[in-house]
Every structure is written in structure tokens, then in C-alpha cells.
């Protein structure tokens, strides 16, 4: 049972890498079209995202998916989606602590409370300043303290900015957890309810939750920016689940971030809204930016219940 799961996971991981290759080739084909070298139209339209962040319809003949059978080496899987630089922006003015992002994340990654890859914290910087809600996950730092200390290269930085964990490699020393100043990582201690849940909900190949194998007992897991969604051009679960559009996800290379309804130029948004990163002074260079909680959409309300009280 367990082996089968691991096999599935591995296949999924491989497939993800293959798709990554496919996407690049699709992009090249699009470029060819623009250059005027066009093959015969098929009449079937597909939607693609341009470099400007616009969704356009083109004929399917201009897009080719090369899902080839070549075996990807481990190092290629670890490289990430070529040409991308994922980034997240969290607008603190919009967060009302509805915790839909937390639930969406748990559903996506097959985790049960109290395990939260994404947490919503009540923050108050000083006595006289206003409290605010603070969604927080792995910041996928550009200078990640966690990947440095890993003795076996089980956690690593990919070219697309994602800090990933290979749970087939992780030895469970938890050094990365000690190194992370944001406490963003979670360890699978094999909580009985969680193990049972994972057995009842084994990974199927078409489930995107399985691209990171967080169900492996005795290893470290965390927010992974939902790379299987990103690959398909979809937004991470926390972004789509938020009813207030608090969380924006995008690509720094494209200079766009979107919460599914609104799309912004990343640099302009950060400039106009005075974006910042948490604990800049630690030098970790997070890929998650915050917009300060000014001109709030909701008045701050204290949480009415304590979450995850049960063991």
C-alpha cells in the first residue's frame, strides 16, 4: 500500500516534470506563430496566457504538447519550471480571518487540522497599533536558510523560485525546521488520524495534491506553492479559496500577480501599496510580499473561537 503510494507519487512527480518541458515547447510554438511561420489551422481554439499576462485564444495547431517519453533525471525534476519566477503578494487590508485559505490548503494537501501549511495569525506590532490578520506560509526565500542546512539535499531551491521538499530523500533530522525563522515547516509525526486519513484517501495520479508527497511519515513538509496548479496555469488553492481575494499569485518574470479576479503589475502594486517582506533584516529574501493593512476592507474583529484546540 505504502509502496504503491510512493510509486504513484513518483510517477506524478515525473509527469509534472514532463509537463514542465511541454509548456516550454508550447511557448516556443507560440513564438513561431508570431514570427509568421504558420502551419495549417485545425479550427480548434485553445486559451493561452501571453507574456503580457493576457488570456488569448489561438488555434490549437499553434500549440504543441511534446509529452515525450524520455526519462527525466532527478536533477531535471529538481530544476523547476523553466522561465518562471513565482511570487506571492498578500494584501493584509483584505484579510478577514475567514480561514478559507487554510481549509483549501488542507484539502489540497490532504492534511488534517492541526497541521497547517498556511496559518492565519493575529498580529499586533505595538500596543498602540491596530491588530491585523496575517496569513503566513513558506516564503520560498531566495536566500533560504533551510536548504543550506539540509544534509542530504532533500530540500532545495528550484529555478522557478519554489523551495521544494523531496520526501523520498528526507531523513527527518528536522534541521530545516530549526533553521526556518518563520516556523513554516511541518513534520509528519504520523498522527494516527492523519495516517488513517491518508490511507483512506490515497493519491491518485490525477490529483494535484500528490505532487508533493506530504503524506510520508517521518519527513518534513510545507507549503509548496502548488506547483502542479502553476504548471497548468491555475492558481494555488489558498488563492482561489479566499473569498476576499487577499492572496495574489504570479510570476515575477511576467511582472503580474492575480487573485483570480484581479490582475496587477507586480512592481506597480508593490510600489503603489508600499509592499514589504516579513523580517527583511534576516536577509532571507522571501518571495512572498505583504501589502500593509491600510484602508481595510473589513474592520478588525477578534476571532470568536480558538482553532485546533484538539490534540
Amino acid at each position, binding site marked *: 500500500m505504502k509502496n504503491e503510494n510512493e510509486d504513484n507519487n513518483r510517477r506524478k512527480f515525473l509527469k509534472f516534470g514532463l509537463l514542465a518541458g511541454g509548456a516550454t515547447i508550447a511557448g516556443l510554438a507560440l513564438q513561431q506563430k508570431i514570427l509568421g511561420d504558420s502551419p495549417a489551422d485545425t479550427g480548434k481554439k485553445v486559451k493561452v496566457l501571453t507574456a503580457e499576462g493576457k488570456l488569448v485564444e489561438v488555434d490549437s495547431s499553434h500549440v504543441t504538447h511534446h509529452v515525450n517519453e524520455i526519462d527525466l533525471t532527478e536533477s531535471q525534476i529538481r530544476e523547476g519550471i523553466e522561465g518562471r519566477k513565482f511570487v506571492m503578494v498578500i494584501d493584509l487590508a483584505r484579510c478577514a480571518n475567514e480561514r478559507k485559505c487554510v481549509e483549501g490548503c488542507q484539502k489540497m494537501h490532504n492534511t488534517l487540522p*492541526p*497541521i*497547517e501549511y498556511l*496559518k*492565519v*495569525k*493575529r*498580529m499586533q506590532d505595538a500596543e498602540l497599533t491596530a491588530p491585523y490578520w496575517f496569513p*503566513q506560509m513558506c516564503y520560498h526565500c531566495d536566500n533560504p*536558510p533551510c536548504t*543550506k*542546512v*539540509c*544534509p*542530504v*539535499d*532533500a530540500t532545495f531551491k528550484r529555478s522557478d523560485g519554489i523551495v521544494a521538499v523531496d520526501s523520498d*530523500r*528526507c*531523513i*527527518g*533530522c*528536522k*534541521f530545516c*525546521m*530549526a*533553521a526556518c*525563522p*518563520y*516556523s513554516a*515547516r*511541518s*513534520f*509528519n*509525526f*504520523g*498522527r*494516527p488520524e*492523519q*495516517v488513517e486519513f491518508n490511507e483512506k484517501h490515497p493519491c491518485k495520479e490525477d490529483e494535484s495534491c500528490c505532487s508533493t508527497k506530504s503524506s510520508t*511519515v*517521518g*519527513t*518534513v513538509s510545507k507549503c509548496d506553492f502548488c506547483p502542479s496548479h502553476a504548471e497548468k496555469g491555475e492558481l494555488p488553492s489558498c488563492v482561489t479559496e479566499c473569498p476576499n481575494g487577499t492572496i495574489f499569485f504570479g510570476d515575477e518574470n511576467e511582472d503580474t500577480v492575480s487573485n483570480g479576479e484581479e490582475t496587477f503589475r507586480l512592481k506597480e502594486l508593490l510600489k503603489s501599496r508600499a509592499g514589504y517582506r*516579513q*523580517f527583511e533584516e*534576516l536577509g*532571507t529574501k522571501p518571495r512572498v510580499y505583504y501589502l500593509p493593512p491600510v484602508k481595510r476592507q473589513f474592520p478588525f474583529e477578534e476571532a470568536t473561537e*480558538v*482553532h*485546533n*484546540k*484538539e*490534540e
Partner: protein
Amino acid sequence: MSGNNITAEKTTYETFTQEEYMVMKDELLRPVQRIGTWGKVWIAFLVTLCLLGLYAYYIQETRSKYVTVSLRDYTMWGVYISNFVFFVALSLIGVLMSAVLKLTNFEWYRPLSRIAEVIAVAAIMLAGVSIVAAMGRPDRLHFLFIHGRIQSPIVWDIIVIITYIATSMVLLFIPLIPSLSTCKNHLHNKPKWQMKMYELLSFGWEGTAEQWKILKKSIRILTIMVIPLGVSIHTVTAWLFATTLRAEWDSTNFGAYFVSGAFLLGVAGMIVAVFAIRKAYKLENYLTPMHFDKLGQALVLMSFIYIYFNINEYLVPAYKMSGLHANHLLDLFVGEDAKMYWTVVICGMLVPAILPLFKSMRKPLPLTIIAVVVVIAAWFKRYLIVIPGLAHPYLPIQDVPDSWRHYSPSLVEMTIVVATFAAMMLIVTLFSRFFPIISVWEVAEGKLEGKDEIINYK
């Protein structure tokens, strides 16, 4: 067994006919020659504790760790890691009590050196065991060798620890060779395999002048080597913490702070071991009140050095009380862990710094009581270094069950910790039952060179 003797008469140590030497040899071989009832009970007791530890580990590995251990996402390192730090610190006993004393010509090292080296080897092994107990996937231990990355402080630690184990074992073994020959020639009524073992391990030692020359030279080289190695193992162990961005470990003082603490623990551990061996094997003629007097003085010196580093480590950040450190420091000074913190400061630093200043406190029994207190406090000191800070990260801990905020070790964890202590004592005990725990020739050598002060038995 001095150089004079050998070169002058071309004789082997077997012809060492002095009456005193024969008495000495008999006395030092006595623990090997005969194991009394209490000796057997003691071994059985330790074996039982070790088996209990193995059983606890079996439970830990076969059942859910969420249930068997108290570790959670915030306090992800617990007593296994603090126990690891404790044992690495204890293993520096070999550096201080054998190598440093030897090289600085403190002649009273002679009956102590082997005791120190056995403890060092045992402690560093148990440090390794503690780390494996802490691993989430011990079945992937070999990944460290297949996929090891030199960037990781864990890999540095493995490299220096393995080097230190190897060096310490060789350093334990080489001075043992003449003793093995003594065992072979003078023990009787021992099983055949045991005599065969002495025969094999003594590598045809005859005690020729040339053999002595090589032996002495190798010991000297290894003794010099083991000092930087010992300092490295504990410094790198400190870096496991200091290379992270966490406020409580973010200190440039950490390496020296750890090493100084290890030296204090080393002296205290030595006092306890000397007292136990002296009583159990009736070696009062060799482990004398003079040794306790000297060790008591060393304890004072090491305490003051450790206090110095503690002031640097805690009071300087406390003066500034920066937002990043306040969380952790206030917890230690006045918060949840204050009781343990101040008890450790008093018992682990002030008591050994002040009490042995008085001569009457440097007598065997009072000094041993002080040393036991210091060893216990030293274990809790490592607990305080590793654990409370983890529960006070930069971002507040919210929306978690109570057990995620407050760590207290589970029964399984404590059983394994107790078992590591039992295993360490078992290794030392078994060693002392197969090999002379006090080096016969080293003591004899000291005697021959007219340094009566060292073995003041008349």
C-alpha cells in the same frame, strides 16, 4: 618502565621485578581478575536499563511518533538532541583529563588518563545513538553518505565526530597494548577466548626498546591530534545551532561557550567516575585524595571560565533586550523556564565555582557530591539551550493544541535517555572488567621516574 631502564639493560617490562610493581600490578588487575556479586548485579542492572531503552525505541519506531514522543512542529528537537549535546560535551573529558594534562606535564594524569579516554569513547558513541533516536527516518541513515552535502553543518559534525571516534579509540588502544601483554601473562582462570583476545590484541608486544619508542611517539602524536579534534567536535556541534537564524542560538559566542561548558562537565564527570572506580575496585592507593584536591581546583577554574561565557551569552543580549531576543530571554529569566534556568545557574555554575574553593570541600566525598550536582545541572543546561527557545519563535504560535506549545518529554523519550546513560556506564564497566582501567605501565613509569607525588602510596 622508564627509558633509562630499557636502554640500560635492554630488558622487557616482564623482568620488572620490583616488589612494588608486582603489588601494583596485582591490585590494578584485580577488577579484571575477579567480578564479585555486586559487580554482576551492577552489570545486570545496566543491561536491564539498556534493554528497556531498546524496547522503548522499538515502541517509538513501530507506533505513531505523535503518540510516543512529545515533539511537535515548534519544539521539533527535544531531549534526544539535548542529550546528544550533553554526550558530545562529556566526550571532551578525554581531551582535558588525558591529553591536556599529559602535554602540560601534570604528572597526576597517569591513573586518570585511561578512565577519561574510555568515557570519551563511550560518550561519543552514545551521542551518535541519541542522534539516530531523534531521526524521523532512521532507515535512511545511509543517505548521509550517499547524498551528503558539505554545505550542511550536520555533515561537518559527522566528519569531525567520526574522526574523533577513530582517533580516541586508537589513543585508547595504543597505551593499552603493554597492558594487554600484562593481562596475558598475569591473569589466570580466565576463559580461553579472553586470553586469546589479549594475545591477538597485544600484537606480539615484547616491550623492546624500539617498541617502547614507537609506542611513546604514537601516543604523543595522537595526544596532540586529539586536542584540536575535541575542540572541533564541540564547536561544530555548537554551530548546528549557531548557523540558524533563531534568536536564541544566534550567537558568535556559541563555539567557545559550548567548549567551556564541556570542560566543566568533563572535570565533574571525571570526579564522579574516579570516586566510583576508587570505591568499587578499592583503588584508593592510586586514586588518592590528592587527585580530588587537584580535580576540585580544576572544577573551580572551569566554572569561572564557563560563567564568563555565560555572562557573554545571556547578560549582554539581556542588557539590550532587543525585540528578537526578549521573547526567549524573558522566558528564561522570569517566565515558564525561570525555575530551571536559575537552578542550573546556581547548581551548575555557582556551586562548583565557590564551594571547592574551601579545602574541606575538595575531599573525595563532598567534592563528588558537588560533581554529581554539576553533572545533573549540565544535562539540564543543554536542555535549556536546545528546547525553550524553540517554543518562542519570531512569529507567535497560535491556533495549535496545548501540547504544541509546551514540551515535556514523554516516557518513551526519557526511557531512551536513561538507557543512553546506562549504556555509557555499561561500556565503561565492561571495559574495566576486561582491561585494567588504570594503566599499569603509565603509573609504574611515573613511579620509576621518582614522581612520588603521583602515586603516594607508601
